[in-house]
Each structure stands twice: as C-alpha cells, then as structure tokens.
C-alpha cells in the first residue's frame, strides 16, 4: 500500500513538472502554431537563475526560507524575460516563415545549454534548497519527498491561475479565440500579436518555475535538463491536445503516473518507453489527442 502511495505521489510530482513545461508549450502551439523547441531552454534558464540566486550571488536570496522563495521568484522573472526576448527577437520576425521559425527555436535550444556549459561547466551543480524540502513527509504510511508535494502544489496553483486568466480576463478571451481562429480575431480589431508575447511570457514563467522546482526534484542542475524534459512535455502536449490547458493537465498526470509505475514494476527505463507507446496508441484512436484540435 505505502509503495502505491509513494509511486502515486512521486508520479504526480513528475507529472507536475511536465505540466509546468507543457502548459506554455501547448498554449504557444495552440495560439501561434509555433513548435517552440526552445521551451526546454527557458526551463534551464529558470533553473540556473534560481541556482545562481540561491547560491548567495543575489543579495537577500539564499538556500533557506524566504531567501529561497526570493531565489525562485528571481528565476521565474529571468525566465519570463528570456521568453519575451525569445518571442520578440527570434520568433516574431519569422511568423510568415514557419520552417525557419522551427529551425531558429531549435538553434536556441542548442545554444542555451552550450552557453550554460561554457559558463558553469557540463557537470551537474548541486542545487541549494531549504532543508525542509530535502526531507520526507509521511503520507498514509509512505515517506514521500517533500519537494514532490511542493511541485504538485505549484502545478495545481499554476493550472488554477491559467484557468482564471483564460476564463475570466479579456486577454484570456483573446487567447482562447485566437487558438480557434487567429485571423478572425484581427478582423474584429484586436492586435493578436500582443497576445503572442503575453502567452510566451506566461509559458516562460511556468517553465522557469518548473526549472526552479525541478532543481529541488533532481537535487542538481545541468545544462541538458531542459531538453530531456522537453521531450516528455511534447508527449504531454500531443496527448492532451494542442492549445488545451486542461488537456495538458490530465495528460501530465497520466504520463507521470504511467512512467513512474512502469519504471518501478518493470525494468527501469521501460516507463519512458511505455509513455511513447501510450502516445502512439492514443493517436491511433484519437488523432486530436484527449481534448484538443488536430495538430
């Protein structure tokens, strides 16, 4: 029983990490038809910025208590700014040339890890964090790492915040309409490109938060983390349906759980494969994913 509880909660923690990356990826694809391969790089930027701040480089920030909260905030802000720059400088000039746009984001996804290893080296760096989050918490007889619970809580908050933004605000309405029919939104007199930048900023913030909390999850940061998480985030986006935040949430949970249980009960590594097989099976039955439109 306690094994099942442990695997469920760690699986949900993994799913939460996927959701933080996939939610932005899904909105960006849904609204702009942009496959943002640089999204993993945004996660890495958030992770390194948080690590940098928590290691004592940022005045006031540190590895414990409020200092760590400040470090995470710093990471999120840096990741958000990086996403805005990415949209304005790399993605925006290429909206009429989708192929070049994909290549440009792939280029960024290679350049950022290279830059990070150039400055801080290729070895994993120990991620500082509050002692409380490195311990375990007893849940129904299972000892669950506290950082998994923090990740789950953060993902639920991000999901609720995104739902509120999409359902209750004017900008959210424009994003939902833009996912359906971008041209018609402009024909109603709305500058849809402002929504593009906004969605990139939101996606960047969520990915950077994923990077900061992913540092706790893995205990370290390394330049390739973002890229390896991006693959599973893409699986989540396709499974959940492009442009659907709730679809991404459901798919994240399913993928995280399947991966965790399969890795434990079969051979380690088979869970990662199972996820891809699951995706293929789903696409055969429902080409639109769980909820969204056809890619």
């Amino acid at each position, binding site marked *: 029983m306690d094994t099942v509880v442990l695997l469920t909660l760690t699986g949900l923690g993994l799913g939460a990490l996927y959701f933080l990356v996939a939610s932005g990826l899904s909105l960006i694809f849904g609204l702009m038809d942009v496959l943002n391969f640089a999204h993993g790089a945004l996660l890495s930027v958030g992770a390194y910025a948080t690590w940098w701040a928590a290691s004592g480089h940022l005045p006031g920030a540190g590895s414990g208590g409020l200092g760590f909260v400040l470090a995470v905030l710093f990471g999120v802000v840096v990741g958000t700014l990086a996403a805005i720059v990415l949209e304005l400088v790399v993605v925006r000039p290429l909206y009429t040339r989708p192929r070049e746009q994909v290549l440009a984001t792939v280029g960024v996804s290679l350049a950022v890890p290279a830059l990070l290893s150039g400055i801080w080296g290729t070895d994993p760096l120990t991620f500082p964090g509050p002692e409380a989050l490195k311990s375990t918490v007893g849940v129904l007889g299972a000892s669950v790492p506290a950082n998994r619970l923090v990740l789950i809580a953060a993902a639920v908050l991000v999901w609720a915040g995104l739902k509120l933004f999409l359902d209750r605000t*004017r900008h959210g*309405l424009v994003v*939902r*309409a833009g996912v*359906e029919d971008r041209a018609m*939104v*402009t*024909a*109603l007199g709305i*500058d849809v490109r402002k929504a593009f930048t906004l969605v990139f900023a939101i996606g960047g913030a969520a990915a950077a938060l994923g990077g900061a909390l992913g540092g706790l999850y893995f205990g370290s940061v390394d330049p390739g983390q973002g890229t390896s998480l991006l693959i599973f985030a893409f699986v989540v986006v396709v499974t959940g349906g492009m442009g659907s935040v709730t679809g991404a949430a459901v798919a994240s949970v399913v993928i995280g759980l399947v991966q965790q249980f399969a890795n434990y009960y079969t051979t380690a590594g088979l869970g990662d494969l199972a996820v891809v097989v699951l995706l293929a099976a789903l696409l055969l039955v429902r080409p639109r994913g769980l909820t969204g439109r056809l890619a």
Partner: protein
Amino acid sequence: MSPGRTARTVPTARPAEGGPLLAVRGLRVLIGGRHILHGVDLDVAAQGVTALLGRNGAGKTTTVRGVLGLVPRTGSVLLDGEETVGLATHTLVRRGIGYAPEDRGVFAGLTVAENLRLAERGDGEPDYALVHELFPELLTRARQAAGTLSGGQQQMVAIGRTLLNGNRLIIADEPTKGLAPKVVTEVTSVLERAAEAVPVLLVEQNLAMVRRLATHCAVLADGRTAHQGPAAALLGDPEATRRLLGVGRAPSPAIPPTTADDAAGAGRSDRTEADL
C-alpha cells in the same frame, strides 16, 4: 468583349454629395504565385447598400479580404480619403469597419456573449441594446456555446458583432449563404435597417435580396471589375443581368425573397440547412 476592358470604360458610380466612403483602385491579390485579383476598382457609396456581385470564383470574397488586409495585396484602398493599404488588419478595422465573413467567423468554443464581447473595442460604449433588440435570441442564448447554434443564429452573432461599435462601414460576405428562407428574410430586414444608418458592402448571390437592398452595385468577373453603377440600372436591364451575372431569366424586381429562388438562385445550391 473581355471583362477586363469593360472595367475602364464603365463610369464609376458616385453618390451625389462627396466621394465614396471606400474607394478601391487597382486592387491586386497574389496567392501562391497566382493572381486572384488583377486590379479591382470598387466604390462603396457613402449611403445605402453597395452590392458586390459576380459568379462563383470571380473574386468577391478575395476582394473583401484584400480590402481588410487579410490577404497580401497591392493597389489603393481609400477609407474616407485615407489610404489603408499598408495598415495592419486590426488597425484598419478599428477605424470603423464591421466585418461578417463568408464562413461567419464565429468562435465555436466560446459563448454567444464572449463572441460579442470580442468585438468590443474599448473606445466608446458598445451598443448591446441595438444588437439585442434586433436579435433577442442572442440575449436568451448568451451563455450557450456558439458552436451549438444553428447556422442562422451564428449569422446573427456575426452580424451582431458588426453592429456593436457604431462602425462607419459594414462588410457582409454572403450573409444568407446556407440559411433557411425564413432566416434569409430576417437577415435581410436587419441589414436593411442597419443600412439606414451605416453604409453596407454586401457580397451576395441571392439576387432577390440584392434587389431589395442594393442602391449601387459592382460586378466582378475573373478578378476584375466588369461593371459598376446604380443598382436599378443593372438589375432593371434583363440583358445586362444575364450577361454579367449569368442569370437565365430576369425576375421582376417585386418578387419577395422566399419565392424568388427559381429565378434568382444562380449559383446557389446550398439552401438546405434547417434553421430555427
């Protein structure tokens, strides 16, 4: 005589006072390396309904999309004397254009109220009273997803969005396409009433509706303007109607919309959708 040459010899219609509200000159649209429009000239009168006519594939919808900048275009489009080619679509629209596209452009996953709210421009009070007076159903179905509406109700959403902002010009692209006769009559009445206050550019295949509403008309053929002039002159001339629009026999102008299908339904074969 090719339609291209007639374009230059036909005098353009101008309202008595002042110039046209919208003056399109030499509009060219190139899509996928192929010219869809070869130089369309079109005046939208400052009052009444200007009908844009022509057979399927003549370039009517492309002209409208070109005017709005929804497709890359060259040429000149003057709105009240100001050049608009080069403006982004949203900037142009905010100068006072309401657009109801051919496919209605309704956001299926959004509610009726949300569809209308998207058309708000934040400058001035949106006229919901007018929209709900003309289409009471849009109020009772405010929380219904637009994708679950009938074609006629979706068209009401599309036209309602154009009436919200006190626009200077309304562009309606085949607003009666695929609608039941009863709804066609309703849409026609609403546009007739709207046109009392705002000039309308109407793309339409339903000639009975055109007869009832149009004060001016322009005819396109093969991506060029083949004719422009007062509506009565063209529609009252059976020979010109047949030559320019390919309508077999010209009906009398008094035929009401619901019975005019056999005579006026040139190119219409989609009036099967059950509505309301």
